[in-house]
């Protein structure tokens, strides 16, 4: 969870340049070795602006909790994941988190996100600590929706159990992430998926976020579901929407993004802890699954996008699913999600945790997995809304499936569609962290707001909403960035995915451990694959690989010059005179002529010794 100040360097540098402190900026650049951020990236001012907004919207308490949770490090990440899961209710928090992350390398962003998305954070924290759950719920409910509360309550029960599951899941998740990519077996998955999905999603989410921006998408999708859920539950209540809307711009973006980013960061840094956290938040699970898949698999990008789509679809579906009538829809959505989740679940299931976790998750899952669980267990209220929600969920699921398919094929391709666009944003934000975070967050916010609206109106908006979100000022940069990120992701995922997948099971624990120590490092590593730029930024302290560091090698004054002048070679003098002016191609040309034997050096003195002896001799 440690903050990486280096992540901010590019923005500070840009800020200095914007302020026309050229000399200062240059010095700063030299000292920090920071890279110049893309023009599309948000500026320090915009980041600060969004942070202020999020701050206002969210309660101080939330912030405090978030900060605490973040400080806890890996736990925070896991908590963030859990938050994400819980965040379904609150999609906004992730955005905030993303923004925050972007602003700050990771920790700071998380903190800010925490502030913005107190609910998420609070939720996360509790799971980690186990103490906070109620507070989280409250926060969530306050931040956004009553539904979230209900879901949270459900979730709350499981949290304790979730933790263990989460841990187990984490390992499985990696494998599951791959499974999730398979996504298309939802039928079986639905029941198990729900339980599994939450876990898997949680785990993956962090991973996704870190490695890829896709996590953002997921988070957004999560948010959507949460919103949907809220909407479903609260639909009658106009407050949720208003709240959401109000929150969305600042809080939503920050919260969703932040959650995602947090999750990602946390997951990257501390997979194990994250896993625990993940268990806490069922909602976050679906997204998490998607994220892990991305990380682990080459298809991560597509998976992530799929996941996001799925998650969004799930979220939508979930809302309908809760009602009970939605079951079919839920299944579909579940299938989409479950494909990943189910796969994950299968892995999870394999692990003993899954069983226990599943049961618990089922209760917890309410928000995310709920769809399936609801279907089987129509426990959720909001029947009145259910039909609508179902309808929405179906369309969404359709969209999600389409988007997912497109995304799977190519995240960039898919990005064209509404669904893809959000993922892109998220993906971009993740890699770009600071830059895209704002845009992503905005997109997330928009999406969340849109989702809310849609939920109230219909699910149709989702895609449109996403698009609109993208269009929104904050989002402006996102589309391009998203496409870029998508492309990057693809590449990265392709190259990276195999390794992650391999590592997935084993690596998760190891990775988590390794990541744990350097919280920032994990994020950077994840980012690196997704986007070299970000990684570079993180590694601002990064130095190019060198076998020999000029500064560290002490060169004896006797050997301080390798030039011809240091020796008395009369025969080679003529060659030196012609070659000393040459370079590159001309040097090669001149030397080739001498290789032919046409060189005449004059007299050879066989008794001169020009070598430099070492001291010991």
């Amino acid at each position: 969870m440690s903050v990486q100040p280096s992540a901010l360097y590019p923005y500070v540098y840009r800020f200095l340049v914007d302020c026309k402190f050229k000399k200062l900026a240059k010095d700063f650049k030299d000292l920090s070795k920071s890279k110049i951020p893309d023009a599309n990236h948000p500026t320090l001012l915009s980041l600060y602006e969004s942070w202020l907004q999020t701050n206002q919207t969210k309660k101080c308490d939330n912030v405090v909790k978030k900060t605490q949770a973040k400080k806890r490090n890996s736990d925070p990440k896991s908590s963030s994941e859990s938050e994400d899961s819980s965040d379904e209710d609150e999609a906004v928090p992730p955005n905030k988190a993303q923004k925050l992350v972007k602003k700050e390398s990771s920790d700071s962003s998380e903190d800010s996100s925490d502030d913005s998305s107190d609910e998420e954070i609070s939720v996360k924290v509790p799971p980690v600590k186990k103490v906070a759950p109620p507070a989280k719920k409250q926060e969530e409910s306050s931040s956004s929706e009553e539904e979230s509360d209900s879901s949270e309550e459900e979730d709350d029960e499981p949290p304790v159990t979730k933790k263990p599951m989460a841990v187990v899941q984490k390992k499985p998740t990696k494998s599951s992430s791959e499974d999730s990519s398979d996504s298309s077996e939802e039928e079986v998955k639905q029941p198990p998926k729900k339980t599994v999905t939450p876990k898997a999603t949680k785990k993956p989410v962090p991973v996704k976020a870190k490695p890829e921006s896709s996590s953002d998408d997921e988070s957004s999708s999560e948010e959507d579901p949460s919103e949907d859920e809220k909407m479903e539950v609260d639909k009658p209540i106009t407050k949720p929407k208003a709240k959401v809307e109000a929150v969305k711009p600042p809080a939503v973006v920050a919260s969703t993004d932040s959650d995602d980013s947090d999750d990602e960061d946390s997951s990257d840094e501390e997979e194990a802890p994250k896993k625990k956290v993940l268990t806490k938040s069922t909602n976050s699970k679906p997204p998490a699954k998607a994220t892990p898949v991305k990380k682990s698999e080459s298809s991560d990008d597509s998976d992530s996008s799929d996941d996001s789509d799925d998650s969004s679809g799930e979220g939508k579906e979930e809302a309908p699913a809760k009602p009970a009538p939605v079951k079919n829809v839920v299944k579909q959505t579940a299938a989409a999600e479950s494909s990943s989740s189910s796969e994950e679940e299968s892995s999870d299931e394999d692990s003993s945790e899954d069983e226990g976790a599943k049961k618990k998750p089922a209760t917890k899952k309410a928000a995310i997995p709920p769809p399936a669980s609801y279907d089987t267990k129509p426990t959720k209220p909001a029947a009145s809304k259910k039909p609508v929600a179902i309808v929405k969920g179906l369309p969404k699921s359709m969209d999600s499936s389409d988007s997912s398919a497109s995304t799977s094929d190519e995240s960039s391709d898919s990005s064209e569609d509404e669904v893809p666009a959000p993922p892109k944003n998220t993906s971009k934000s993740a890699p770009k962290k600071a830059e895209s975070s704002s845009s992503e967050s905005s997109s997330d916010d928009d999406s969340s707001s849109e989702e809310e609206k849609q939920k109230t109106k219909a699910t149709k908006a989702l895609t449109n909403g996403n698009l609109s979100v993208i269009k929104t000022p904050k989002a402006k940069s996102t589309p391009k960035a998203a496409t870029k990120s998508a492309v990057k992701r693809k590449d990265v995922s392709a190259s990276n995915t195999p390794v992650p997948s391999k590592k997935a099971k084993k690596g998760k624990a190891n990775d988590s451990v390794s990541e744990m120590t350097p919280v920032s490092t994990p994020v950077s590593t994840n980012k690196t694959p997704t986007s070299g730029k970000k990684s570079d930024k993180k590694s601002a302290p990064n130095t190019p690989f060198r076998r020999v560091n000029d500064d560290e090698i002490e060169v004896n004054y006797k050997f301080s010059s390798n030039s011809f002048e240091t020796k008395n070679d009369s025969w080679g003098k003529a060659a030196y005179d012609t070659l000393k002016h040459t370079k590159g191609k001309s040097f090669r040309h001149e030397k080739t002529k001498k290789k032919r034997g046409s060189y005449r050096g004059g007299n050879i003195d066989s008794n001169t010794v020009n070598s430099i002896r070492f001291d010991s001799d």
Partner: protein
Amino acid sequence: MVEPHRHSGVFIARGKEDALVTKNLVPGDTVYGEKKIEVENDGSKIEYRAWNPFRSKLAAAILGGIESIHMKPGAKVLYLGAASGTTVSHVSDIVGPEGLVYAVEFSHRSGRDLINVAKKRTNIIPIIEDARHPHKYRMLVGMVDTIFADVAQPDQVRIVALNAHNFLKNTGHFVISIKASCIDSTAKPEAVFASEVKKMQGEKMKPQEQMTLEPYERDHAVVVGIYRPPPKNKNK
């Protein structure tokens, strides 16, 4: 007229333009199209081959004024990075019929030429193997007096050390040509050489002298040292 060089086995052909030459082990045969110089001495003809310092780093070291190459007639030399065998052929001239040259080259393409050279020069034992794995050719190589290395690999000191541990006699010598850009092209050559020398010192290889290969090679240096020197008397 040809006169011997300070390094035994190496000669200088005097004339309008002096040239570095070695006594051809296989009269009438050229290895890579080099010039032949025939000298009639007491009714018998002796053939020498010109040795171009722009094509051979060992020749560049000799012309540049290295103090000792530790190769003389009758010596056994392990030559790492033999390539096509052009320099190896001159080393085989230097060590003569009493000496031996174990020529290690990993590239099969170059190794083919090397084997063709070895076919006519019986004191060359070609070994087409990776010099990183001396155990693969340990059955072919006996103890040697000198190791010459021109492998241009980032870990070349390690490679030389591995072979020295296996085949180089105590107080034997090594001659290493270092191409700075093969170690680290971003660092200053002098720093690269210093770091390589430091590595040698950690492998019981005591460097004795270093010399630039300018103007024959760019950013190259040759380091000559002794392996497992006696406590007091470091020199051969």
